[in-house]
């Protein structure tokens, strides 16, 4: 087990290095930073001075080394937009995204648990079909449009909830609901199929024969085993949530990381994008590492 974890750690580290190289290369491809900083009246000497000041006169490997050093020291550069440190920018935005996405994941999990299990237990009935229909529709409808409709109906037309921004608990309702809808279809479909498989197994039949109530059989015996395959979906879910956060935060003007990225995109603010992508890459690798280790723990056949 230790060996497995060490190998996985090394692999994750190598992946991280590769990603940082790609980002570094793109940073250099994005245009000459000197031209962005230098005032329009700058002479050739001025430009050369700025170039030296930024260390851009050094060779590419040297520049990459400086880039790595800065990252490890938590120095992610300054935003081109407002000269703020990217580290502080991310620091103020990150908690908002974490609270939003954790609540959405929590809600999405509970709802998809209920929907998935109900659909599997009532296999082939109208309830099953209704859940399948919602899941298929949820995968096809653009979620950003759903968010716009939700704002129009509940915030503007009925005036029950605030349209956008962050503050009171009421501000959470619409963003959390729409963000959870991103992951709902995947989870419900996965849970339904894995639940169907488990419900057909011998030990569930045994539990029934023992005379346990249907509620205990389904929610205790079957569900516990049906959830395990969902672990593999954790990586995909994380990717969906990140994508969702960027879109939902933009629509709801939520002051989180996703909106920061969307804004940086429009202003072509490379330092911000570079830092956030790097951050997400680290989290993605970490989540996958956790999933792999948990899986190896649950299923010993996976270990080396």
């Amino acid at each position: 087990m230790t060996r497995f974890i060490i190998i996985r750690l090394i692999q994750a580290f190598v992946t991280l290095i590769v990603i940082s190289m790609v980002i570094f290369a793109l940073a250099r491809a994005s245009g000459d930073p000197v031209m962005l900083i230098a005032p329009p009246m700058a002479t050739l000497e001025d430009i050369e001075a700025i170039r030296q000041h930024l260390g851009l006169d050094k060779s590419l490997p040297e520049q990459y080394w400086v880039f790595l050093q800065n990252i490890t020291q938590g120095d992610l550069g300054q935003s081109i937009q407002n000269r703020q440190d990217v580290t502080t920018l991310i620091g103020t935005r990150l908690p908002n995204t974490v609270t939003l996405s954790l609540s959405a994941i929590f809600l999405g999990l509970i709802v998809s648990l209920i929907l998935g299990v109900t659909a599997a237990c009532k296999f082939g009935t109208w309830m099953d079909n209704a859940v399948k229909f919602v899941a298929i529709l949820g995968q096809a409808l653009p979620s950003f449009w759903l968010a716009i409709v939700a704002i129009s109906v509940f915030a503007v037309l009925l005036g029950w909830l605030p349209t956008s921004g962050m503050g009171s608990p009421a501000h959470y309702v619409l963003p959390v609901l729409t963000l959870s809808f991103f992951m709902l279809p995947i989870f419900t479909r996965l849970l339904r199929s894995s639940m169907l498989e488990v419900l057909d197994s011998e030990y569930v039949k045994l539990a029934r024969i023992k005379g346990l109530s249907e509620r205990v059989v389904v929610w205790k015996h079957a569900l516990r085993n049906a959830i395990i395959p969902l672990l593999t979906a954790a990586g995909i879910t994380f990717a969906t949530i990140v994508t969702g956060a960027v879109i939902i935060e933009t629509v709801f003007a939520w002051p989180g990381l996703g909106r920061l990225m969307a804004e940086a995109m429009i202003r072509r603010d490379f330092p911000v994008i570079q830092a956030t992508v790097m951050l997400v890459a680290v989290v993605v690798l970490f989540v996958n590492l956790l999933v792999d280790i948990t899986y190896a723990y649950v299923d010993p056949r996976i270990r080396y």
Partner: protein
Amino acid sequence: MEKAKFGKKLIQIWKYSRRFPVIPIAIFCVLVFVAIFADVITPYPPNEMSLTERLTPPFFMPEGSTAHLLGTDNIGRDILSRMMFGARISLSVSLMVIAIATIIGTFLGMIAGYMRGRVDAVLMRVTDAALAFPALLIALLLGVALGPSFRTVVLALSALSWAPYARMMRGEVLKIRDEDFVAQARIIGSSQARILIKHIFPNVVNTLVVLMTMSVGLVILIEASLSFLGAGIPPPTPSWGSMVADGRNLFQRAWWISLFPSLAIGAVVLSGNFLGDWIRDKMDPRLRQL
């Protein structure tokens, strides 16, 4: 009595459409037709502004007119014409992305499955990383680095969408690489390349076609999300996603600006998924668990 008969008929139609999805195929035919002949059939040029006809509602509304069947946006551009040109963007982006993803994914996946060992391990780790990484982030990164353009969108979407193909192809090749006919080809002295292309590839083509159909909807959806965020194809080129974004703040007064393009996205993605399911059941029922 009448009611029961009617219900039965509905179920019959439903069952028939499961066997042969008429509606999704029709929607796709319309999409392809509109995308190809957009220049000829659109009532107006997609970027023609008409400030006197701003925010005209669709024809079925009291103030609407048949001059603009689906109404106009806030600078008087015809929604229907823009949607028709948007179809061209959606279709061409998804065709190119799927073509690139298929070529790269099939190549890497087949190599990994055939070679096994270290090559396989390295390739699969890369594939895993690509599978877990949000495509939207790569698109934003490339959009900032290279500037938003048609090329950037295709590049960004292809950068990650090859991964499912590689994964699937590897699995398929692993299954058949030890079959007798492959061993026989090796014995008579076929080269590795010949074995892969002539003997293994024809056996995995079905799976490939299924995967390609199933990803049409997904690619269109991501392209729309990108355009919605302003990281897609830059304006004024009409794209369904950016049309929804345009109408975002006007949803109360002029819902038609964003409703019709989003319905188009939903309908096309939905039919793509249905078609994918149908082709899968026809060609490769083993994949049903997917």
